[in-house]
């Protein structure tokens, strides 16, 4: 007689149906290192054919599993080797053509996003990197599904401040070229410190040079499930109990993700990579990380105590996830994207949540300043300064931090930017008007911190 527990069955169905438990993404990580060629058209053909042959069944098999387990798989994605590396040996550096090739194949195999239009320039740029960075705005404006990321700093190398300076301008241009869509181009572009090579989440997913030929990485989510579990606790439950219930819930979410991941990897006949347990919100009601803070006892995200609540949440999620899978990787923790989280949006609208508070929160969350809309007339150097602050937090604390910020063309504080779909909408948030130009123009490289010398 098989085990048959009605309580478990009801709980599982409730998690999926009422609390939005889902597999956020199944991401095929694929090395394109063997696609380099002196002729950019040949290089593009190799890229197209390789991605097609590995991922032609990704979407179909994912749909099958969604049906068999009745758990939604929200996105199918591909993470490729940074194109700055693959395209560097082309004699004519036509990175935009390569981006359009990625977009074409992504559409052909019916995936939602393809990541890897990326560069790793934490210590400085090669000739190819420099040409590549210039191409990012146009590449994002002329493609739909391509996502771009640039690693500007690590705890070992320090911060490439010339890169930070450049990225301020690139983000502005990416937004301006997509002005009719509220600067959507900048929403598909992220700057990293300590970027993660097996991250399945966008816009930062890419297949690191140290990754195997291919692997299937899974991103699971479920802020609604965690929130519901905390709400079930009495208001007098101490924070140890709260942390414990988060761990238990994270465990359940992770095992589900691992089951789907292993099954899908088996069907695709490729190795299972990692599971990334990140509480990633969506704009839907009841799928919010900020609502978890409220369940913990804060009036709204942004209240004093938010950073502490987030730190505990982030840590408990990791601990629960680690118990559930041998291969937890990626970013794993809690995301705080403003435009993608219903309650974050409310907190930003009411003025309770500011960029300064968000910056503090990024020192304890799994990533960084994410999906924040700022006035379109913010200067490139101010954006660079925001990036520099965030890179410093990551570098000193040996964690991943990121900036995905959108200077929305022709909009000012109080207006609403609408990106649509999972990217949601966001009120334009104020930035400081103080001038940081001289500091940013100094350029150069911020030396790696003393604790990088740990050999």
């Amino acid at each position: 007689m098989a085990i048959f527990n009605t309580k478990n069955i009801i709980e599982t169905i409730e998690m999926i149906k009422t609390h939005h438990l889902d597999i956020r993404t199944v991401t095929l990580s694929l090395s394109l290192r063997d696609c380099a060629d002196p002729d950019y058209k040949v290089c593009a053909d190799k890229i197209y054919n390789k991605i097609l042959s590995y991922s032609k069944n990704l979407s179909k098999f994912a749909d099958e599993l969604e049906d068999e387990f009745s758990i939604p798989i929200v996105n199918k994605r591909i993470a490729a080797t940074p194109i700055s590396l693959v395209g560097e040996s082309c004699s004519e550096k036509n990175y935009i053509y390569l981006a359009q090739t990625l977009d074409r194949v992504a559409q052909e195999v019916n995936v939602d996003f393809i990541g890897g239009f990326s560069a790793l320039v934490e210590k400085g740029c090669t000739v190819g990197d420099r040409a590549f960075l210039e191409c990012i705005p146009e590449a994002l404006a002329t493609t739909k599904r391509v996502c771009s990321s640039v690693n500007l700093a690590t705890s070992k190398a320090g911060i490439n401040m010339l890169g930070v300076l450049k990225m301020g301008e690139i983000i502005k241009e990416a937004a301006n070229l997509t002005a009719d869509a509220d600067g959507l181009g900048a929403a598909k572009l992220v700057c990293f410190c300590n970027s993660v090579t097996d991250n399945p989440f966008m816009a930062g997913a890419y297949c690191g040079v140290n990754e195997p030929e291919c692997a299937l990485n899974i991103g699971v989510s479920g802020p609604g499930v965690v929130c519901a579990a905390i709400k079930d606790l009495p208001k007098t439950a101490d924070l140890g109990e709260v942390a414990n219930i988060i761990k238990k819930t994270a465990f359940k979410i992770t095992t589900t993700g691992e089951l789907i991941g292993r099954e899908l990897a088996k069907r695709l006949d490729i190795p299972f990579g990692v599971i990334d347990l990140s509480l990633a919100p969506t704009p839907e009601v009841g799928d919010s990380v900020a609502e978890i803070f409220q369940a913990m006892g804060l009036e709204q995200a942004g209240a004093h105590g938010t950073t502490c609540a987030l730190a505990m949440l982030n840590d408990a999620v990791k601990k629960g996830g680690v118990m559930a899978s041998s291969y937890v990787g990626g970013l794993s923790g809690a995301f705080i994207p403003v435009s993608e989280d219903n309650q974050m949006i409310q907190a930003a609208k009411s003025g309770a949540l500011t960029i300064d508070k968000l910056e503090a929160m990024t020192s304890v969350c799994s990533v960084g300043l994410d999906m924040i809309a700022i006035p379109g007339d913010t200067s490139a150097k101010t954006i660079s300064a925001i990036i520099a602050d965030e890179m410093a937090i990551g570098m000193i604390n040996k964690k991943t931090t990121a900036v995905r910020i959108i200077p929305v063309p022709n909009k000012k504080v109080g207006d609403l930017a609408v990106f649509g779909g999972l990217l949601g909408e966001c009120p334009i948030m104020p930035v400081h008007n103080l001038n940081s130009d001289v500091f940013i123009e100094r350029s150069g490289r911020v030396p790696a911190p003393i604790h990088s010398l740990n050999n």
Partner: protein
Amino acid sequence: MEKEAQKIIITITGADKIGIVAKITQVLADCEANIEDIRQSIMQGHFIMMMLCDISKSKKSFKEIKEILSEAASSLEMEIWVQRKEIFDKMHTI
């Protein structure tokens, strides 16, 4: 597919009425699915039934069986969930 992969859990909920069990079990018999366990209760007129079935002897695929069951449930105006059993095993055991 190995044997374990052929176990499914069916959950049916909705307003209680005559003939729910009869219809669903008939559909399963037609599909040559073997019912290994049934739990059923009624709470304030709300019917809930869970079944553990083995579909390894069925000539129909999981997808076909799910479609036939979904049709039967919608004719009864009931909500139905048909899922492979592993999801419950994994989620709730260390």
